[in-house]
């Protein structure tokens, strides 16, 4: 059982494991999360939500709620600008704003169980809840559309009357539940299949799953008498929330300040606005700050889970294991409004392999379920479950080693993906080699009715905008401000990169996550981008500090700037060895020589470098109960350069365990009325400590050429391989392929019985 780091390059601070700056606050309970905000005069808001997954809203009567003592404000869709601007006022922008607003507060139709219809602010949450119960809504129920295959059929019940399918830039003639049909192709797949010795075609299903962050969504808003709106919330992106609120409330961003609190998990689920615009409108109506917290059931039913899917993979290979062609079709649930992560799914589906001939199609399909959102490598895990299962079956048919076949086909520098981009320096082959030589892979599987599976995973990683400023304090420390919220250790990873660049100690860098008024636009903490892109911003700001420190030293020494250099935290004259100051010595003199120095950098980098992972898992299947136990798990990943290896391991282990949950237990279970039957942590069963072994990790470092220390994103790709790896292991254990997630005890038993086992 071990955690290994395979490093070629050592740095002074990057790659070490210091204590995170926010750690003490988080182990003592002092850290302030969204629900911990209590401004003076605070009121509490509650939402009325639809019990039906699909219905027309005939009328809403809030009069009794408004009359309840202790109630200070009630809002409905009528209070949003969409209602007053209407189709005439908005023209071409109408449908987009209608979708954005209706998701937050339904107007004419409800499209999923839990869809908000009204909200109340009252003196406490109990009174608000009572008031919500007094609101009368008349519905006209419509048949719910609950899966992609039903939604795609001709004559299916339409969820939106005026939604058309976009396909290669054209719109369909008839309205449809399919918002988009994506199509990417490379080479000639028909020829590729003709050249194959074996061709397999398989179908796969997965169910809707949730990110499962432990902290529910929250928002506290105060609309001040001067028209300034302040919002405290736990979000992955304060600027995204500012933009969403500005959009649906038609209110200038300059009048909105979003203060991001500590955030209790997100995994992609805390990017969209849900409560923020509503708490803002409630506050505007009553002139007091209003806090709204989701219950766990509201989180399940009305935040943004990951889509269920129907998928098809056709793949051909020659006898020696060379893949000659692949055709992948992905149909993902968008939920109630367009915008599933199927686009990213199409980008990832075949991207572990260097294929001559490939085609990937994607369908974004509306269903009467919550609007789906990002969940850790959004779109990739489903596709990998399908593709990596088929590759395993090809290896079985050809009697070839699954790692050797993957090495033979692996993407490498110069590989062009089916949808276009060409890989720079990447580490998939190194990860596969590390898997092959790992103690886990060399040892036989232990236990009875047990098996081993392996699978690969891909996530492209992201760059996007980040902003950092840093001020040199006169005691020789750095106060660093950033817009990226810290969801799992990025204060540490950004401070390490800063200290490395400035040649100072990690402990002398003090990072703070600041609000939207205090820093430049910064995209979400997501896409595995923060340590990379905000890291680059910090490095840029540190370089700016160095340049100014050199100028200041030149001024003090009365010498041209060209004569002064900055080396490892020392500012020195290039030829006069007497003239030399440490960073700290110069910092002390700043006050008397012109004042403080502030470095700044705003970046929007490309060069993020793709993420690859290879996982090995051993499982044991209890043939009497159908329960699958994880005996051993090893995750191998190209991390570029692990800035703080402990937190990289943590990302890998956490992603693996979310994947284990997705593989074995987790699913939204809907009844025939379209109502989720398991919206609690009791019935939506995520893995506990008792369900798991230690998760072994191997960090492979293939330096990313797009970053001075070789850093690339690490957070998302670890959730991609587990479902296929576990399915492949189950196959080895019981001889059966499991084409549908979750591979719960019931499904395993059914498969065993159907096959007379």
């Amino acid at each position, binding site marked *: 059982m071990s955690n290994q780091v395979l490093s070629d390059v050592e740095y002074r601070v990057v790659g070490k494991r210091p204590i995170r700056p926010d750690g003490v606050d988080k*182990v003592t*309970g002092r850290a302030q999360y969204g629900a*911990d905000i209590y401004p003076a005069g605070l009121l509490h808001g509650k939402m009325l939500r639809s019990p039906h997954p699909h219905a027309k809203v005939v009328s809403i009567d809030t009069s009794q709620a408004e009359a309840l003592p202790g109630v200070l404000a009630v809002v409905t869709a009528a209070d949003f600008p969409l209602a007053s601007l209407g189709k005439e006022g908005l023209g071409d922008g109408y449908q987009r704003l209608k979708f954005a607003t209706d998701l937050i507060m339904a107007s004419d139709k409800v499209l999923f169980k839990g869809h908000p219809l009204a909200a109340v602010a009252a003196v406490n949450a109990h009174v608000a809840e009572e008031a919500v119960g007094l609101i009368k809504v008349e519905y006209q129920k419509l048949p719910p559309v609950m899966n992609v295959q039903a939604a795609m059929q001709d004559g299916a019940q339409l969820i939106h009357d005026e939604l058309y399918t976009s396909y290669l830039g054209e719109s369909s003639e008839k309205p449809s539940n399919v918002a988009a049909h994506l199509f990417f192709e490379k080479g000639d797949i028909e020829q590729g299949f003709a050249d194959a010795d074996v061709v397999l075609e398989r179908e796969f299903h997965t169910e809707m799953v949730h990110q499962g962050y432990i902290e529910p969504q929250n928002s506290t808003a105060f609309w001040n008498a001067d028209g300034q709106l302040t919002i405290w919330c736990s979000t992955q992106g304060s600027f995204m929330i500012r933009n969403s609120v500005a959009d649906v409330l038609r209110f200038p961003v300059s009048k909105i300040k979003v203060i991001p609190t500590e955030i209790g998990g997100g995994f992609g689920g805390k990017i969209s606005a849900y409560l923020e615009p509503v708490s803002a409108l409630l506050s505007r109506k009553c002139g007091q700050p209003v806090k709204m917290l989701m219950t766990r059931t509201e989180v399940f039913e009305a935040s943004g889970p990951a889509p269920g899917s129907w998928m098809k993979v056709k793949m051909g290979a020659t006898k020696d294991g060379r893949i000659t062609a692949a055709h992948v079709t992905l149909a993902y649930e968008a939920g109630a409004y367009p915008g599933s992560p199927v686009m990213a799914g199409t980008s990832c589906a075949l991207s572990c392999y260097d294929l001559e001939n490939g085609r990937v199609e994607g369908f974004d399909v509306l269903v009467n379920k919550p609007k789906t959102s990002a969940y850790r490598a959004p779109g990739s895990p489903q596709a990998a479950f399908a593709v990596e299962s088929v590759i395993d079956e090809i290896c079985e048919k050809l009697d070839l080693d699954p790692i050797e076949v993957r090495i033979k086909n692996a993407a490498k520098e110069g590989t062009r993906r089916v949808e276009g981009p060409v890989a720079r320096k990447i580490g998939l082959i190194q990860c596969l080699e590390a898997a092959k030589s790992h103690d886990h892979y060399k040892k036989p599987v232990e236990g009875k009715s047990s098996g081993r599976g392996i699978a690969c995973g891909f996530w492209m990683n992201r760059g996007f905008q980040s902003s950092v400023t840093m001020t040199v304090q006169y005691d020789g420390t750095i106060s660093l401000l950033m817009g990226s919220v810290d969801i*799992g250790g990025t204060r540490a990873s950004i401070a390490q990169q800063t200290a490395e660049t400035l040649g100072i100690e990690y402990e002398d860098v003090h990072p703070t996550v600041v609000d939207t008024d205090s820093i430049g636009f910064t995209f979400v903490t997501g896409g595995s981008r923060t340590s990379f892109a905000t890291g680059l911003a910090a490095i840029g700001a540190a370089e700016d500090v160095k340049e100014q420190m050199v100028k200041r030293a030149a001024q003090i020494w009365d010498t041209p700037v060209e004569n002064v250099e900055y080396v490892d935290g020392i500012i020195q004259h290039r030829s006069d060895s007497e003239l030399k100051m440490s960073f700290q010595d110069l910092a002390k003199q700043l006050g008397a020589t012109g004042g403080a120095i502030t470095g700044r950098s705003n970046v929007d980098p490309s060069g993020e470098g793709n993420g690859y992972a290879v996982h090995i898992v051993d499982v044991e299947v209890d043939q009497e109960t159908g329960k699958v136990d994880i005996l051993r798990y090893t995750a191998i990943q190209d991390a570029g350069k692990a800035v703080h290896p402990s937190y990289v*391991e943590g990302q890998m*282990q956490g992603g693996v365990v979310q994947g284990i949950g997705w593989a074995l237990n987790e699913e939204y279970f809907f009844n025939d009325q379209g109502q989720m039957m398991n919206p609690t942590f009791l019935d939506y069963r995520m893995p506990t*400590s008792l369900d798991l072994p230690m998760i072994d990790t191997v960090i492979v470092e293939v330096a990313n050429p797009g970053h001075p220390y070789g850093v690339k994103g690490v957070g998302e790709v670890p959730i991609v391989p587990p479902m296929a790896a576990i399915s492949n292991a189950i196959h080895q254990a019981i001889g059966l392929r499991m084409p549908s997630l979750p591979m719960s005890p019931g499904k395993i038993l059914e498969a065993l019985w159907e096959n007379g086992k």
Partner: protein
Amino acid sequence: MPGLTHVQTTINGVQTDFLAEPRQSLLEVLRDVLGKTGTKEGCNDGNCGACTVMLDGRIVDSCLVLAVETQGSEITTIEGLATADGLHPIQQAFLEQAALQCGICTPGFIIAAKGLLDQEPDADEGRIRHWLAGNLCRCTGYDKIIRAVLEAEKQLK
């Protein structure tokens, strides 16, 4: 409006009186009335363990305890573990072992781990995994949490 009950407790060693409605949970009173927001709400139905506190030496989900039931009780919350001299060894171990990512479940885990180590200073990995199964963490995969508790055991000896 329901009537209020005067409740006398000792929280983190300090005598603490409060007024509670019958429908208010201990969690709600700790957070909304007493300002002890280190105890977190993750589900409010006893399934996640984020609100774990010690009540008369036993760990409980404070969302499942009515505040009026705590009359005369001794309660320890996360705010009561560190002293002026420094962190509790369990807190220190979580910090050093990188046993937290987002940190929202951390107070509950630390209190739950204390509940175990107070009674069973030699708990092995299997026992720790069993004991902590009432606390959900979605970030870490539990690996580093288990290691931190094992490390804290060593430090407590």
